[in-house]
Protein backbone atom coordinates (compact mmCIF):
# COMPACT_ATOMS: atom_id res chain seq x y z
CA UNK A 1 0.00 0.00 0.00
CA UNK A 2 1.13 3.53 -0.74
CA UNK A 3 2.93 5.24 2.11
CA UNK A 4 0.68 8.22 1.46
CA UNK A 5 -2.14 6.39 3.24
CA UNK A 6 -0.09 6.29 6.44
CA UNK A 7 -0.42 10.07 6.71
CA UNK A 8 -2.88 11.61 9.11
CA UNK A 9 -5.52 13.99 7.82
CA UNK A 10 -3.36 16.89 9.05
CA UNK A 11 -0.26 15.33 7.49
CA UNK A 12 -2.00 14.93 4.14
CA UNK A 13 -3.31 18.49 4.35
CA UNK A 14 0.21 19.79 4.92
CA UNK A 15 1.66 17.58 2.16
CA UNK A 16 -0.88 19.04 -0.29
CA UNK A 17 0.14 22.55 0.62
CA UNK A 18 3.86 21.93 0.40
CA UNK A 19 3.39 20.43 -3.05
CA UNK A 20 4.63 16.96 -1.99
CA UNK A 21 1.45 15.39 -3.32
CA UNK A 22 -1.80 16.26 -5.07
CA UNK A 23 -5.44 15.56 -4.32
CA UNK A 24 -5.58 13.29 -7.36
CA UNK A 25 -2.57 11.33 -6.11
CA UNK A 26 -4.07 10.99 -2.62
CA UNK A 27 -7.40 9.95 -4.09
CA UNK A 28 -5.83 7.33 -6.33
CA UNK A 29 -3.89 5.95 -3.36
CA UNK A 30 -7.09 5.86 -1.33
CA UNK A 31 -9.11 4.20 -4.10
CA UNK A 32 -6.39 1.54 -4.46
CA UNK A 33 -6.55 0.88 -0.71
CA UNK A 34 -10.35 0.80 -0.86
CA UNK A 35 -10.25 -1.78 -3.67
CA UNK A 36 -7.80 -3.90 -1.67
CA UNK A 37 -9.98 -3.80 1.45
CA UNK A 38 -12.69 -6.16 0.13
CA UNK A 39 -12.09 -8.79 2.86
CA UNK A 40 -13.05 -6.14 5.44
CA UNK A 41 -16.36 -5.44 3.67
CA UNK A 42 -16.30 -1.80 4.74
CA UNK A 43 -17.08 0.03 1.47
CA UNK A 44 -20.56 -0.76 0.22
CA UNK A 45 -21.16 1.80 -2.53
CA UNK A 46 -18.45 2.79 -4.99
CA UNK A 47 -18.09 6.52 -5.65
CA UNK A 48 -14.70 6.48 -7.38
CA UNK A 49 -15.86 8.58 -10.35
CA UNK A 50 -17.20 11.27 -8.06
CA UNK A 51 -13.99 11.07 -6.03
CA UNK A 52 -11.73 11.64 -9.02
CA UNK A 53 -13.84 14.57 -10.23
CA UNK A 54 -13.78 16.08 -6.72
CA UNK A 55 -10.00 15.53 -6.59
CA UNK A 56 -9.36 17.44 -9.83
CA UNK A 57 -11.52 20.29 -8.60
CA UNK A 58 -9.67 20.26 -5.27
CA UNK A 59 -6.28 20.47 -6.97
CA UNK A 60 -7.41 23.56 -8.89
CA UNK A 61 -8.64 25.13 -5.68
CA UNK A 62 -5.40 24.31 -3.87
CA UNK A 63 -3.41 25.90 -6.66
CA UNK A 64 -5.33 29.16 -6.28
CA UNK A 65 -4.61 29.15 -2.55
CA UNK A 66 -6.74 29.81 0.53
CA UNK A 67 -8.49 26.45 0.29
CA UNK A 68 -10.11 25.13 3.50
CA UNK A 69 -8.26 22.50 5.56
CA UNK A 70 -10.36 19.59 4.27
CA UNK A 71 -9.67 20.45 0.63
CA UNK A 72 -8.29 17.51 -1.33
CA UNK A 73 -8.62 14.97 1.48
CA UNK A 74 -10.24 11.57 0.71
CA UNK A 75 -12.79 10.47 3.30
CA UNK A 76 -15.49 7.80 3.60
CA UNK A 77 -19.15 8.61 4.21
CA UNK A 78 -21.35 6.42 6.41
CA UNK A 79 -24.29 4.97 4.48
CA UNK A 80 -26.64 6.86 6.84
CA UNK A 81 -25.85 10.21 5.17
CA UNK A 82 -27.99 11.06 2.16
CA UNK A 83 -25.68 11.71 -0.78
CA UNK A 84 -27.28 13.19 -3.87
CA UNK A 85 -27.64 10.67 -6.68
CA UNK A 86 -25.59 8.07 -4.76
CA UNK A 87 -27.18 4.99 -3.21
CA UNK A 88 -28.05 5.60 0.46
CA UNK A 89 -29.53 2.61 2.20
CA UNK A 90 -28.80 2.93 5.92
CA UNK A 91 -27.66 -0.70 5.44
CA UNK A 92 -31.31 -1.73 5.15
CA UNK A 93 -33.17 -3.76 2.55
CA UNK A 94 -36.08 -1.37 2.85
CA UNK A 95 -34.05 1.41 1.20
CA UNK A 96 -32.70 -0.76 -1.60
CA UNK A 97 -32.30 1.33 -4.72
CA UNK A 98 -32.88 4.62 -2.90
CA UNK A 99 -30.94 7.49 -4.44
CA UNK A 100 -31.56 10.74 -2.56
CA UNK A 101 -32.38 13.80 -4.62
CA UNK A 102 -30.59 15.96 -2.08
CA UNK A 103 -27.37 16.08 -0.07
CA UNK A 104 -27.20 15.94 3.74
CA UNK A 105 -26.04 19.21 5.30
CA UNK A 106 -22.96 17.59 6.88
CA UNK A 107 -21.74 15.89 3.69
CA UNK A 108 -22.48 19.10 1.76
CA UNK A 109 -20.37 21.09 4.22
CA UNK A 110 -17.52 18.62 3.82
CA UNK A 111 -17.77 18.76 0.03
CA UNK A 112 -17.96 22.56 0.13
CA UNK A 113 -14.71 22.43 2.11
CA UNK A 114 -13.19 20.35 -0.69
CA UNK A 115 -13.29 16.90 0.92
CA UNK A 116 -13.40 13.92 -1.43
CA UNK A 117 -15.86 11.01 -1.04
CA UNK A 118 -14.13 7.71 -1.85
CA UNK A 119 -17.14 5.54 -0.99
CA UNK A 120 -20.14 4.86 1.23
CA UNK A 121 -19.47 2.86 4.38
CA UNK A 122 -20.99 -0.19 6.02
CA UNK A 123 -22.92 0.17 9.30
CA UNK A 124 -25.59 -1.51 11.37
CA UNK A 125 -29.05 -1.33 9.83
CA UNK A 126 -30.52 2.10 10.62
CA UNK A 127 -27.58 2.49 13.06
CA UNK A 128 -29.23 -0.02 15.38
CA UNK A 129 -26.48 -2.26 16.66
CA UNK A 130 -23.14 -2.35 18.42
CA UNK A 131 -21.28 -4.82 16.16
CA UNK A 132 -22.10 -4.03 12.51
CA UNK A 133 -23.77 -7.44 12.32
CA UNK A 134 -27.27 -6.18 11.48
CA UNK A 135 -26.23 -4.78 8.08
CA UNK A 136 -27.89 -5.90 4.87
CA UNK A 137 -24.41 -5.79 3.31
CA UNK A 138 -23.06 -8.37 5.76
CA UNK A 139 -20.60 -7.87 8.59
CA UNK A 140 -17.87 -5.29 8.41
CA UNK A 141 -14.65 -6.80 9.75
CA UNK A 142 -12.23 -5.25 12.22
CA UNK A 143 -8.74 -4.77 10.73
CA UNK A 144 -7.36 -5.91 14.10
CA UNK A 145 -6.89 -9.66 14.21
CA UNK A 146 -4.86 -11.58 16.78
CA UNK A 147 -5.99 -15.16 16.21
CA UNK A 148 -8.09 -17.11 13.72
CA UNK A 149 -11.24 -15.17 14.55
CA UNK A 150 -12.61 -12.24 12.60
CA UNK A 151 -13.61 -9.53 15.04
CA UNK A 152 -16.36 -6.95 15.05
CA UNK A 153 -15.25 -3.37 14.38
CA UNK A 154 -18.10 -2.31 16.70
CA UNK A 155 -21.17 -0.43 15.64
CA UNK A 156 -23.07 1.19 14.40
CA UNK A 157 -20.33 3.14 12.56
CA UNK A 158 -18.33 -0.10 12.17
CA UNK A 159 -17.51 0.44 8.50
CA UNK A 160 -16.33 4.00 9.18
CA UNK A 161 -14.02 2.93 12.00
CA UNK A 162 -12.65 -0.12 10.16
CA UNK A 163 -12.02 1.93 7.00
CA UNK A 164 -9.99 4.54 8.89
CA UNK A 165 -8.12 2.00 11.04
CA UNK A 166 -7.23 0.06 7.86
CA UNK A 167 -5.92 3.30 6.32
CA UNK A 168 -8.16 3.10 3.26
CA UNK A 169 -9.20 6.74 3.70
CA UNK A 170 -7.93 9.51 5.97
CA UNK A 171 -11.11 9.91 7.99
CA UNK A 172 -14.81 9.08 7.86
CA UNK A 173 -18.13 10.45 8.97
CA UNK A 174 -19.97 8.62 11.69
CA UNK A 175 -23.13 9.10 13.68
CA UNK A 176 -23.65 8.42 17.36
CA UNK A 177 -27.01 7.74 19.01
CA UNK A 178 -25.81 5.66 21.97
CA UNK A 179 -22.09 5.27 21.31
CA UNK A 180 -21.95 4.49 17.60
CA UNK A 181 -18.89 6.69 16.97
CA UNK A 182 -16.98 6.16 20.21
CA UNK A 183 -17.41 2.39 20.64
CA UNK A 184 -16.20 1.44 17.12
CA UNK A 185 -13.34 3.94 17.42
CA UNK A 186 -12.30 2.20 20.65
CA UNK A 187 -12.61 -1.29 19.10
CA UNK A 188 -10.37 -0.31 16.16
CA UNK A 189 -7.71 1.74 17.96
CA UNK A 190 -8.61 5.15 16.57
CA UNK A 191 -10.32 8.39 17.62
CA UNK A 192 -13.97 9.40 17.41
CA UNK A 193 -15.86 12.39 18.75
CA UNK A 194 -19.57 12.96 19.18
CA UNK A 195 -20.17 16.70 19.53
CA UNK A 196 -22.81 18.39 21.67
CA UNK A 197 -26.36 17.68 20.51
CA UNK A 198 -27.23 20.49 18.09
CA UNK A 199 -23.66 21.13 16.84
CA UNK A 200 -24.01 19.15 13.60
CA UNK A 201 -27.13 19.41 11.51
CA UNK A 202 -29.15 16.20 11.36
CA UNK A 203 -30.74 17.26 8.08
CA UNK A 204 -30.36 14.57 5.44
CA UNK A 205 -29.08 11.96 7.88
CA UNK A 206 -31.44 8.98 7.97
CA UNK A 207 -33.12 9.41 11.37
CA UNK A 208 -32.93 6.80 14.12
CA UNK A 209 -33.68 8.54 17.43
CA UNK A 210 -33.88 12.26 16.74
CA UNK A 211 -33.29 13.53 20.29
CA UNK A 212 -30.06 11.50 20.53
CA UNK A 213 -28.57 11.34 17.00
CA UNK A 214 -25.44 13.40 16.30
CA UNK A 215 -22.90 13.20 13.51
CA UNK A 216 -19.17 13.36 14.14
CA UNK A 217 -15.80 12.42 12.65
CA UNK A 218 -13.85 9.17 13.02
CA UNK A 219 -10.15 9.88 12.57
CA UNK A 220 -6.64 8.63 13.24
CA UNK A 221 -5.94 11.13 16.00
CA UNK A 222 -7.25 14.06 18.00
CA UNK A 223 -5.85 16.77 15.70
CA UNK A 224 -7.63 15.17 12.76
CA UNK A 225 -10.85 15.01 14.78
CA UNK A 226 -10.56 18.75 15.49
CA UNK A 227 -10.01 19.58 11.82
CA UNK A 228 -12.84 17.47 10.49
CA UNK A 229 -15.33 18.30 13.25
CA UNK A 230 -14.96 22.00 12.51
CA UNK A 231 -15.88 21.37 8.87
CA UNK A 232 -18.96 19.34 9.86
CA UNK A 233 -20.43 21.73 12.47
CA UNK A 234 -22.56 24.80 12.16
CA UNK A 235 -26.06 26.18 12.34
CA UNK A 236 -28.57 24.90 9.81
CA UNK A 237 -32.06 26.34 9.44
CA UNK A 238 -33.21 22.98 8.08
CA UNK A 239 -32.70 21.28 11.48
CA UNK A 240 -34.91 22.86 14.14
CA UNK A 241 -32.62 21.53 16.90
CA UNK A 242 -29.48 22.98 15.33
CA UNK A 243 -27.81 25.52 17.63
CA UNK A 244 -27.06 28.95 16.30
CA UNK A 245 -23.58 29.33 17.77
CA UNK A 246 -20.32 30.24 16.08
CA UNK A 247 -18.02 27.28 15.38
CA UNK A 248 -14.65 27.84 17.03
CA UNK A 249 -11.33 26.92 15.45
CA UNK A 250 -10.99 23.56 17.19
CA UNK A 251 -7.48 22.85 15.99
CA UNK A 252 -6.29 26.13 17.47
CA UNK A 253 -7.56 24.90 20.85
CA UNK A 254 -5.00 22.07 20.83
CA UNK A 255 -2.31 23.58 23.03
CA UNK A 256 -1.84 20.48 25.17
CA UNK A 257 -1.92 22.73 28.22
CA UNK A 258 -4.46 21.39 30.71
CA UNK A 259 -2.91 22.86 33.86
CA UNK A 260 -5.61 23.74 36.38
CA UNK A 261 -8.34 21.75 34.61
CA UNK A 262 -10.43 19.51 36.85
CA UNK A 263 -11.09 15.95 35.67
CA UNK A 264 -13.79 13.84 37.30
CA UNK A 265 -13.59 10.07 37.73
CA UNK A 266 -17.12 8.71 38.18
CA UNK A 267 -17.28 5.81 40.63
CA UNK A 268 -20.43 4.39 38.99
CA UNK A 269 -18.44 3.50 35.85
CA UNK A 270 -16.50 0.86 37.78
CA UNK A 271 -18.78 -1.99 36.71
CA UNK A 272 -18.74 -5.67 37.66
CA UNK A 273 -16.69 -7.86 35.41
CA UNK A 274 -14.60 -5.03 34.01
CA UNK A 275 -11.29 -6.51 32.82
CA UNK A 276 -8.28 -5.64 35.02
CA UNK A 277 -6.35 -4.20 32.12
CA UNK A 278 -9.15 -1.71 31.50
CA UNK A 279 -9.16 -0.59 35.13
CA UNK A 280 -5.38 -0.22 34.96
CA UNK A 281 -5.55 1.84 31.77
CA UNK A 282 -8.22 4.03 33.29
CA UNK A 283 -6.11 4.71 36.40
CA UNK A 284 -3.04 5.32 34.27
CA UNK A 285 -5.01 7.76 32.12
CA UNK A 286 -6.07 9.65 35.24
CA UNK A 287 -2.47 9.71 36.49
CA UNK A 288 -1.28 11.05 33.14
CA UNK A 289 -3.78 13.90 33.25
CA UNK A 290 -2.64 14.67 36.81
CA UNK A 291 1.00 14.66 35.67
CA UNK A 292 0.02 17.11 32.93
CA UNK A 293 -1.17 19.51 35.60
CA UNK A 294 -4.87 18.67 35.89
CA UNK A 295 -6.65 18.14 39.18
CA UNK A 296 -8.24 14.68 39.29
CA UNK A 297 -11.28 14.20 41.52
CA UNK A 298 -13.60 11.32 42.31
CA UNK A 299 -17.17 12.18 41.41
CA UNK A 300 -20.57 10.52 41.51
CA UNK A 301 -23.15 10.29 38.72
CA UNK A 302 -25.77 8.43 40.73
CA UNK A 303 -28.25 7.62 37.94
CA UNK A 304 -25.71 6.04 35.59
CA UNK A 305 -27.16 2.58 36.14
CA UNK A 306 -30.48 3.67 34.69
CA UNK A 307 -29.09 5.15 31.49
CA UNK A 308 -29.27 1.95 29.44
CA UNK A 309 -32.84 1.06 30.39
CA UNK A 310 -33.93 4.68 29.78
CA UNK A 311 -32.16 4.62 26.43
CA UNK A 312 -33.87 1.38 25.43
CA UNK A 313 -37.23 3.07 25.95
CA UNK A 314 -36.48 6.46 24.40
CA UNK A 315 -34.46 5.31 21.37
CA UNK A 316 -36.95 2.62 20.23
CA UNK A 317 -39.88 5.00 20.86
CA UNK A 318 -38.35 7.63 18.60
CA UNK A 319 -37.29 4.98 16.09
CA UNK A 320 -40.79 3.56 15.86
CA UNK A 321 -42.02 7.02 14.97
CA UNK A 322 -39.16 7.88 12.58
CA UNK A 323 -39.33 4.55 10.77
CA UNK A 324 -43.07 4.84 10.19
CA UNK A 325 -42.15 6.57 6.94
CA UNK A 326 -40.94 3.28 5.43
CA UNK A 327 -44.28 2.14 4.12
CA UNK A 328 -43.55 1.17 0.53
CA UNK A 329 -45.23 4.26 -0.88
CA UNK A 330 -42.70 7.04 -1.40
CA UNK A 331 -39.31 5.36 -1.59
CA UNK A 332 -37.49 2.08 -1.20
CA UNK A 333 -38.85 -1.43 -1.17
CA UNK A 334 -42.49 -2.40 -1.72
CA UNK A 335 -43.57 -6.01 -1.19
CA UNK A 336 -45.19 -7.93 -4.01
CA UNK A 337 -48.88 -8.11 -3.24
CA UNK A 338 -51.33 -10.93 -3.75
CA UNK A 339 -54.84 -10.63 -5.11
CA UNK A 340 -57.08 -9.06 -2.51
CA UNK A 341 -54.24 -7.44 -0.55
CA UNK A 342 -55.11 -3.91 0.49
CA UNK A 343 -52.98 -1.08 1.79
CA UNK A 344 -52.58 -2.57 5.27
CA UNK A 345 -51.16 -5.80 3.83
CA UNK A 346 -48.86 -3.68 1.69
CA UNK A 347 -47.50 -1.89 4.78
CA UNK A 348 -47.19 -5.07 6.82
CA UNK A 349 -45.49 -7.17 4.15
CA UNK A 350 -43.22 -4.35 3.02
CA UNK A 351 -41.99 -3.69 6.56
CA UNK A 352 -41.61 -7.39 7.38
CA UNK A 353 -39.49 -7.93 4.26
CA UNK A 354 -37.59 -4.66 4.45
CA UNK A 355 -36.59 -4.44 8.13
CA UNK A 356 -34.10 -6.86 9.69
CA UNK A 357 -34.74 -8.60 13.01
CA UNK A 358 -33.14 -5.99 15.30
CA UNK A 359 -34.91 -3.09 13.58
CA UNK A 360 -38.26 -4.89 13.78
CA UNK A 361 -37.64 -5.61 17.45
CA UNK A 362 -36.88 -1.97 18.25
CA UNK A 363 -39.77 -0.60 16.20
CA UNK A 364 -42.13 -2.92 18.05
CA UNK A 365 -40.68 -2.16 21.50
CA UNK A 366 -41.04 1.51 20.65
CA UNK A 367 -44.59 0.99 19.51
CA UNK A 368 -45.38 -0.77 22.77
CA UNK A 369 -43.89 1.84 25.11
CA UNK A 370 -45.80 4.56 23.26
CA UNK A 371 -49.10 2.69 23.15
CA UNK A 372 -52.16 3.80 25.06
CA UNK A 373 -51.98 2.65 28.66
CA UNK A 374 -48.17 2.25 28.70
CA UNK A 375 -47.04 5.70 27.60
CA UNK A 376 -46.80 7.04 31.14
CA UNK A 377 -45.38 3.91 32.71
CA UNK A 378 -42.59 3.51 30.18
CA UNK A 379 -42.02 6.49 27.92
CA UNK A 380 -42.73 9.33 30.33
CA UNK A 381 -40.89 7.56 33.15
CA UNK A 382 -37.84 7.10 30.91
CA UNK A 383 -37.92 10.79 30.01
CA UNK A 384 -38.04 11.70 33.69
CA UNK A 385 -35.07 9.44 34.39
CA UNK A 386 -33.30 11.06 31.45
CA UNK A 387 -33.80 14.44 33.12
CA UNK A 388 -32.14 13.03 36.27
CA UNK A 389 -29.23 11.63 34.27
CA UNK A 390 -28.65 15.03 32.71
CA UNK A 391 -28.92 16.65 36.16
CA UNK A 392 -26.14 14.33 37.42
CA UNK A 393 -23.84 15.87 34.80
CA UNK A 394 -25.13 19.43 35.36
CA UNK A 395 -24.34 19.06 39.05
CA UNK A 396 -20.73 17.91 38.61
CA UNK A 397 -20.06 20.57 35.97
CA UNK A 398 -21.54 23.20 38.30
CA UNK A 399 -19.17 21.90 41.00
CA UNK A 400 -16.20 22.76 38.80
CA UNK A 401 -15.54 19.60 36.79
CA UNK A 402 -14.24 20.41 33.29
CA UNK A 403 -14.21 16.90 31.86
CA UNK A 404 -14.92 13.34 32.92
CA UNK A 405 -12.64 10.37 32.22
CA UNK A 406 -14.12 6.89 31.74
CA UNK A 407 -13.40 3.77 29.71
CA UNK A 408 -15.02 3.86 26.25
CA UNK A 409 -16.28 0.27 26.32
CA UNK A 410 -16.45 -2.50 28.92
CA UNK A 411 -14.12 -4.75 26.90
CA UNK A 412 -12.14 -5.03 23.66
CA UNK A 413 -13.73 -6.17 20.39
CA UNK A 414 -15.43 -9.57 20.38
CA UNK A 415 -15.60 -12.12 17.59
CA UNK A 416 -18.18 -11.76 14.83
CA UNK A 417 -21.04 -14.18 15.48
CA UNK A 418 -20.10 -14.71 19.13
CA UNK A 419 -23.13 -12.80 20.35
CA UNK A 420 -25.52 -14.42 17.89
CA UNK A 421 -27.25 -16.57 20.48
CA UNK A 422 -27.11 -14.03 23.28
CA UNK A 423 -30.13 -12.16 24.55
CA UNK A 424 -30.43 -8.77 22.76
CA UNK A 425 -29.96 -7.11 26.16
CA UNK A 426 -26.41 -8.58 26.39
CA UNK A 427 -25.47 -6.70 23.24
CA UNK A 428 -27.00 -3.49 24.60
CA UNK A 429 -24.53 -3.59 27.52
CA UNK A 430 -21.63 -2.65 25.23
CA UNK A 431 -23.02 0.89 25.23
CA UNK A 432 -23.01 1.21 29.02
CA UNK A 433 -20.30 3.93 29.16
CA UNK A 434 -21.31 5.88 26.07
CA UNK A 435 -25.10 6.09 26.25
CA UNK A 436 -25.25 8.53 29.18
CA UNK A 437 -23.52 11.12 26.99
CA UNK A 438 -26.26 10.95 24.34
CA UNK A 439 -29.02 11.13 26.92
CA UNK A 440 -27.45 14.29 28.36
CA UNK A 441 -26.59 15.73 24.92
CA UNK A 442 -22.93 16.18 25.85
CA UNK A 443 -19.78 15.97 23.73
CA UNK A 444 -17.71 12.81 24.18
CA UNK A 445 -14.51 11.58 22.60
CA UNK A 446 -12.82 8.18 22.57
CA UNK A 447 -9.05 8.00 22.23
CA UNK A 448 -7.05 4.78 21.84
CA UNK A 449 -5.31 4.04 25.12
CA UNK A 450 -3.53 0.71 24.91
CA UNK A 451 -3.76 -2.97 24.06
CA UNK A 452 -5.33 -5.75 26.08
CA UNK A 453 -3.28 -8.94 26.81
CA UNK A 454 -4.41 -10.41 23.50
CA UNK A 455 -3.18 -7.34 21.63
CA UNK A 456 -6.53 -5.68 20.94
CA UNK A 457 -7.07 -1.94 21.34
CA UNK A 458 -8.94 -0.38 24.25
CA UNK A 459 -10.17 3.19 24.43
CA UNK A 460 -10.64 5.85 27.06
CA UNK A 461 -13.50 8.32 26.85
CA UNK A 462 -13.52 11.96 27.87
CA UNK A 463 -16.86 13.70 28.37
CA UNK A 464 -17.00 17.48 28.19
CA UNK A 465 -19.31 20.33 29.05
CA UNK A 466 -21.92 21.27 26.45
CA UNK A 467 -20.50 23.38 23.58
CA UNK A 468 -16.96 23.00 24.96
CA UNK A 469 -15.66 20.68 22.23
CA UNK A 470 -12.51 22.80 21.90
CA UNK A 471 -11.64 22.34 25.56
CA UNK A 472 -12.56 18.64 25.37
CA UNK A 473 -10.39 18.10 22.30
CA UNK A 474 -7.51 19.81 24.05
CA UNK A 475 -7.81 17.54 27.08
CA UNK A 476 -7.99 14.54 24.73
CA UNK A 477 -4.93 15.90 22.92
CA UNK A 478 -2.97 16.04 26.20
CA UNK A 479 -4.12 12.52 27.09
CA UNK A 480 -3.24 11.20 23.62
CA UNK A 481 0.25 12.68 23.92
CA UNK A 482 0.81 11.08 27.32
CA UNK A 483 -0.59 7.70 26.25
CA UNK A 484 1.60 7.58 23.15
CA UNK A 485 -0.54 4.88 21.53
CA UNK A 486 0.77 4.15 18.05
CA UNK A 487 -0.03 0.47 17.43
CA UNK A 488 -1.55 -0.41 14.08
CA UNK A 489 -3.17 -3.61 12.82
CA UNK A 490 -1.24 -6.04 10.62
CA UNK A 491 -2.55 -5.66 7.12
CA UNK A 492 -3.71 -9.30 6.91
CA UNK A 493 -6.40 -8.49 4.35
CA UNK A 494 -3.89 -7.42 1.68
Amino acid sequence: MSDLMKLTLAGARDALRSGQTTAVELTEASLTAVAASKPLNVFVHNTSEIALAQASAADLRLKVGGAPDMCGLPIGIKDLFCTKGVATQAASAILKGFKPQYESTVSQKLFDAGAIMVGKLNMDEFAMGSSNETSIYGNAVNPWKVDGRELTPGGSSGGSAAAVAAETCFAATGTDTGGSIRQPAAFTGITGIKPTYGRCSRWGIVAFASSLDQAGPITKDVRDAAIMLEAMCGFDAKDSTSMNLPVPNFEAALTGDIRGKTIGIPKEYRVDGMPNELETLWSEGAAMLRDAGAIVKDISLPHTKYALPAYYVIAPAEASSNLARYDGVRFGHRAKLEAGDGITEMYEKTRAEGFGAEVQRRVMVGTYVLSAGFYDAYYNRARRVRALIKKDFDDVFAAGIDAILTPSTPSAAFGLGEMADADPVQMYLFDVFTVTVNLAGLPGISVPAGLDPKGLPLGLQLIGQPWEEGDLLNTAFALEKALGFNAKPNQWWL
Partner: protein
Amino acid sequence: MTIDIKTAARIAKLARIKVDEVDLSALAQEFTNILGFIEQLNEVDVEGIEPMTSVTPQRLFRRDDVVNDGNQQAAVLANAPDAREGFFAVPVVVE
Protein backbone atom coordinates in the same frame (compact mmCIF):
# COMPACT_ATOMS: atom_id res chain seq x y z
CA MET B 1 -44.44 -7.76 32.93
CA THR B 2 -44.89 -10.86 30.79
CA ILE B 3 -45.89 -10.32 27.20
CA ASP B 4 -48.18 -13.06 25.91
CA ILE B 5 -48.69 -14.13 22.32
CA LYS B 6 -51.85 -12.09 21.96
CA THR B 7 -50.10 -8.91 23.08
CA ALA B 8 -47.13 -9.62 20.81
CA ALA B 9 -49.52 -9.96 17.87
CA ARG B 10 -51.21 -6.69 18.80
CA ILE B 11 -47.87 -4.87 18.98
CA ALA B 12 -46.86 -6.24 15.56
CA LYS B 13 -50.19 -5.10 14.16
CA LEU B 14 -49.80 -1.60 15.62
CA ALA B 15 -46.27 -1.41 14.17
CA ARG B 16 -47.58 -2.61 10.78
CA ILE B 17 -45.09 -5.46 10.63
CA LYS B 18 -46.31 -8.86 9.48
CA VAL B 19 -45.19 -11.56 11.93
CA ASP B 20 -45.97 -15.22 11.21
CA GLU B 21 -47.97 -17.09 13.85
CA VAL B 22 -45.08 -19.48 14.47
CA ASP B 23 -42.73 -16.61 15.35
CA LEU B 24 -45.02 -14.93 17.86
CA SER B 25 -43.98 -16.95 20.88
CA ALA B 26 -40.27 -16.20 20.43
CA LEU B 27 -41.14 -12.54 19.87
CA ALA B 28 -43.23 -12.45 23.03
CA GLN B 29 -40.29 -13.89 24.99
CA GLU B 30 -37.92 -11.24 23.58
CA PHE B 31 -40.34 -8.46 24.52
CA THR B 32 -40.64 -9.90 28.01
CA ASN B 33 -36.85 -9.92 28.42
CA ILE B 34 -36.41 -6.37 27.10
CA LEU B 35 -39.25 -5.00 29.20
CA GLY B 36 -37.80 -6.81 32.22
CA PHE B 37 -34.58 -4.89 31.63
CA ILE B 38 -36.47 -1.63 31.20
CA GLU B 39 -38.44 -2.13 34.41
CA GLN B 40 -35.35 -1.25 36.47
CA LEU B 41 -36.58 2.29 35.87
CA ASN B 42 -39.31 1.68 38.43
CA GLU B 43 -36.65 1.84 41.17
CA VAL B 44 -36.01 5.53 40.46
CA ASP B 45 -37.83 8.22 42.40
CA VAL B 46 -39.10 10.55 39.69
CA GLU B 47 -41.54 12.47 41.88
CA GLY B 48 -41.76 16.08 40.73
CA ILE B 49 -39.37 15.56 37.78
CA GLU B 50 -40.60 16.85 34.43
CA PRO B 51 -40.13 14.50 31.47
CA MET B 52 -37.29 15.83 29.33
CA THR B 53 -38.25 17.06 25.89
CA SER B 54 -34.96 18.61 24.83
CA VAL B 55 -31.38 18.43 26.10
CA THR B 56 -30.71 22.00 25.05
CA PRO B 57 -32.62 24.70 26.87
CA GLN B 58 -33.53 26.41 23.61
CA ARG B 59 -37.04 26.46 22.22
CA LEU B 60 -37.29 24.99 18.71
CA PHE B 61 -36.87 27.93 16.42
CA ARG B 62 -39.58 28.71 13.93
CA ARG B 63 -39.38 30.11 10.47
CA ASP B 64 -41.90 32.42 8.82
CA ASP B 65 -44.97 30.59 7.60
CA VAL B 66 -44.26 31.10 3.92
CA VAL B 67 -43.67 28.83 0.96
CA ASN B 68 -39.91 28.54 0.55
CA ASP B 69 -39.60 25.53 -1.71
CA GLY B 70 -41.62 23.60 -4.25
CA ASN B 71 -42.08 22.65 -7.89
CA GLN B 72 -40.11 19.47 -7.36
CA GLN B 73 -42.61 16.85 -8.44
CA ALA B 74 -40.09 14.81 -10.41
CA ALA B 75 -37.58 14.76 -7.53
CA VAL B 76 -40.28 13.87 -5.01
CA LEU B 77 -41.49 10.94 -7.13
CA ALA B 78 -38.07 9.81 -8.32
CA ASN B 79 -37.69 7.05 -5.74
CA ALA B 80 -41.30 5.87 -5.58
CA PRO B 81 -41.84 2.13 -6.15
CA ASP B 82 -44.96 2.99 -8.16
CA ALA B 83 -45.53 6.54 -9.43
CA ARG B 84 -48.10 7.25 -12.11
CA GLU B 85 -49.29 10.47 -13.72
CA GLY B 86 -47.56 12.57 -11.11
CA PHE B 87 -48.90 10.66 -8.12
CA PHE B 88 -47.81 7.91 -5.73
CA ALA B 89 -49.84 4.82 -6.61
CA VAL B 90 -51.14 2.53 -3.83
CA PRO B 91 -53.63 -0.33 -3.64
CA VAL B 92 -57.28 0.70 -3.50
CA VAL B 93 -58.02 2.32 -0.13
CA VAL B 94 -61.67 3.34 -0.57
CA GLU B 95 -63.98 1.24 -2.73
